[in-house]
């Protein structure tokens, strides 16, 4: 927090804004991504790729525009969030471009290069970030839209039910001329706004006006009821759309925000019990889920039999063959995984081509984004800001854990995208918006308190001037 003193003799000292630090880091992030391109090109064709300049300039523009917007509209915001997101986005572009070069993919009828589209989506995402920074002068404005958020989020969640399933999950909507959209990615942010707004108002009631039941404090139905209903409704929708990753994400985010709002540990216990019950319940009637649990338990058992299992095993083999230092960008065979290699399984490419070292770096970058988000929540002065920031960064953390844990076989694969890295428009756009909101909250949190008005008494106590 700022070093503002409240004495009247010495004026308020501005907290350093750290904008130049941010600029340097953005330049660094762009440079690393451009090097990644050069690396892929040299490894695959022995020459610098022709598109390198285009992608480099594109990425530099994105980082630059975002930085200028931050400098202008959120000058006190956290200096790490933007460079880290830029780095992941740039790295993701290089990885997607690398997978576009795969001869195995190019031999497929369904092959469409994804890198140029991804750059376009990234631009839209950064545009959205700028819009957030410009339009949202203060994050507390969002409080006003608590219930509208609820309606919009539920609408977005229900929407894909009317569209056909893709690869077993009904999470896409198809708009002719535009392409497919995953509304869940946006619903994630909007429902956080609802949770934060609702919990901020009701948190005292939830925490204090509760009845003791079996050693735990349970809130009154009229306080918890509405939020529980909305939450249960969204989980149900997601379960019926077989979007398990997202339902896990919504659930975790809900528990985290409830815990932060009420400060009651019993919610964690309560949440874990419910999630266990829910997981067992879903796994027992959903064959799609059963396949994935089996693939998780023994990925090699279903070789040649179950597609999910084979895909999982191929992912593990990609990680295994990367080893400690990796094969080098462009020199692995992660495209053996097949159709989801550039979306759900993009981490396998990181694992194979950048190795354990690269994977740890990438995971730490994600960890750093999350911790900067939680730091923002700590620094925020208003409960709404705290809840919103922790909700957004918590959901980000859970998403990273669910996806990375899934492709590494730590937990059953549920099918979500790695934020910023994976090919997919909705994901990259929504996550840029998420970063935008976090930047906005951190700007408010770190902004120095206005200097107090000069005190008329000050003159009186002044001592002799030389």
């Amino acid at each position, binding site marked *: 927090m700022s070093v503002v003193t409240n004495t009247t003799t010495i004026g308020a000292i501005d907290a350093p804004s750290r904008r130049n630090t941010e600029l340097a880091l953005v330049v660094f992030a762009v440079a690393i991504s451009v090097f990644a391109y050069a690396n892929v090109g040299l490894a695959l064709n022995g020459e610098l790729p022709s598109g390198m300049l285009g992608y480099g300039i594109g990425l530099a523009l994105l980082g630059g525009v975002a930085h200028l917007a931050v400098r202008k509209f959120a000058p006190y915001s956290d200096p790490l969030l933007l460079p880290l997101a830029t780095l992941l986005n740039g790295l993701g572009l290089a990885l997607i471009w690398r997978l576009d070069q795969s001869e195995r993919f190019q031999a497929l009828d369904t092959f469409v290069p994804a890198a140029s589209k991804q750059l376009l989506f990234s631009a839209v995402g950064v545009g959205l970030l700028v819009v957030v920074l410009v339009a949202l002068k203060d994050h507390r404005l969002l409080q006003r839209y608590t219930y509208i958020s609820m309606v919009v989020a539920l609408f977005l969640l229900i929407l894909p039910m009317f569209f056909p399933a893709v690869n077993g999950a009904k999470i896409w909507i198809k708009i002719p001329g535009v392409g497919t959209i995953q509304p869940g990615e946006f619903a994630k942010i909007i429902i956080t706004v609802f949770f934060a707004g609702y919990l901020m108002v009701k948190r005292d009631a939830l925490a204090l006006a509760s009845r003791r039941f079996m050693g735990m404090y349970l809130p009154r139905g009229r306080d918890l009821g509405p939020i529980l209903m909305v939450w249960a409704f969204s989980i149900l929708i997601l379960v019926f759309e077989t979007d398990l990753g997202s339902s896990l994400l919504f659930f975790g985010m809900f528990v985290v925000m409830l*815990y932060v709002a009420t400060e009651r540990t019993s919610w964690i216990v309560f949440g874990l019990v419910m999630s266990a019950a829910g997981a067992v319940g879903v796994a027992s009637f959903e064959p799609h889920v059963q396949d994935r649990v089996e693939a998780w338990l023994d990925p090699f058992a279903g070789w040649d039999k179950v597609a999910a299992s084979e895909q999982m095993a191929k992912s593990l083999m990609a990680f295994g063959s990367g080893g400690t230092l990796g094969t080098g960008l462009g020199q692995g065979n992660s495209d053996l995984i097949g159709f989801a290699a550039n979306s759900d399984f993009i981490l396998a490419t990181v*694992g194979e081509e950048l190795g*354990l070292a690269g994977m740890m770096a990438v*995971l730490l970058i994600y*960890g750093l984004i999350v911790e900067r988000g939680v730091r923002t929540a700590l620094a925020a002065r208003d409960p709404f800001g705290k809840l919103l920031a922790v909700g957004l960064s918590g959901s980000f953390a859970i998403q990273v854990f669910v996806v990375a844990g899934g492709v590494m*076989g730590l937990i059953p694969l549920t099918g979500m995208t790695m934020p910023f890295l994976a090919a997919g428009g909705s994901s990259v756009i929504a996550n840029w918006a998420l970063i935008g909101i976090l930047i906005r909250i951190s700007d408010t949190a770190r902004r120095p308190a206005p200097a107090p008005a000069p005190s008329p008494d000050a003159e009186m106590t002044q001592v002799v001037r030389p």
Partner: protein
Amino acid sequence: MNKPLRRIAIFCGVLVLALLIRDNWLQYVRADELNSHKHNRRVQIERYAHERGNIIVDGNPVTGSVETTGSDFKYKRVWKNGPMWAPVTGYSSQAFDASQLESLEDGILTGNDDQLFFDRTLSMFTGEKKTGGNIVTTLNGAAQKAAFEGLGNKKGAVAAIDPRTGAILALASTPSYDPSVFAGNTLKDSDARQKLLKDKDKPMLNRALRETYPPGSTFKVVTAAAALENGLYDDIDAKTDSPLPWTLPQTSVPLKNEGNIPCENASLREALRWSCNTVFGKMSDDLGNEKMIEQTEKFGFNKEIFTPVRADASIYPKDNRPQNAMAGIGQASNRTTPLQMAMVASAIANDGKLMQPYMVAERQAPNLDVIYTHEKEQLGQPLSGENAQKVQQMMETVVNSGTGTNARIDGVTVGGKTGTAQHGLNNSEKPYAWFISYAKTDSGSPVAVAVVVEDGNANRDDISGGGLAAPIARNVMKAVVDSQ
């Protein structure tokens, strides 16, 4: 709200930590296991991703690599004179894995072996193109050519060893196949392989190492060695206790000789010279099954031999008296590989010392540094030097004035033994023609050889071993002696 926030921060940290630990476990602890998993296609891709190292004979590669397109596999294996060298190299196919040396030495040939780690790391920094290491074999090109061409279009096999070291000099098997025809992964390769697999002549069978034959009369040298070693007889020119006719023990079946040859109480030397069944049959019976097994196992019977390519175990089984007597002349349930009979001849030629047969002389790193050199290794001493020399004298008599005159080489001492192994129900099928021999010069014996020809002469009364197999053996020995 800050206390729960701090806890959430820790919780998020724990999530990332869990991922980091899992990643370390996957990419560090389990990396090798996953990387060499049988379903991991990278293993095949890697095998053909670089120019494969070569298998070298007489300083020249007998293999090569050509670049291909249209699949994951960049390079394809090719062989120079594939049919001749296939029994040595084995095959290495993009679609059908590899066999023999190509498979056993895959690590060196692909350049992925741990022994090459330093070399690989170095070339990573110098930016050299990755290639495989070489396998330098012990084979002698001229001997191999003599063996392969000698067999010609007949079915059979030749194994030749340097008795002094155990180095394998020739390893031929006919009919053979060209591994190049299915080295790729196209439909054509697959068809070519299917055709080879369906061929009733089994061209892909390595007869020198993987087929066991009844050894026929060549086995009499083993029986003779057993008799000398066990003190049944001592002087090879003294009369033996061998009545004629002689009836197989416990039966009323007389054991016959081939034609009217002087076998009654014949000395060891004469009995071997004329290949007397009665003498050696009785000798085996006198020694008994146990002692015969003991002697054969000293020569390497009853267990697999690794050269490093695996050779089937030659068999001398536990058996009843009449069978054991027949086994003494190589006509019962005892069976041997050509390599095993070459080992028998080489142990005798090397004054009783049996050397471990091997065919990899050196392994070379891609930069031609030698990273492994074979040290000759004695496998055992099946017979004493004195007894070995006695058997040598007997075998030399066979070549000089007995059934093996076709193997004579001017200016070189040659010892040998013919064999005509009958087989099939009631000996209905054409016999196998055998010949085992060694050549000797001033510097000891440079070569011992075993030849088997499956489709013997139609005229069964001819001494087929001497007629069909001995000239091949002669040419192989001559090729080795000439190249010394």
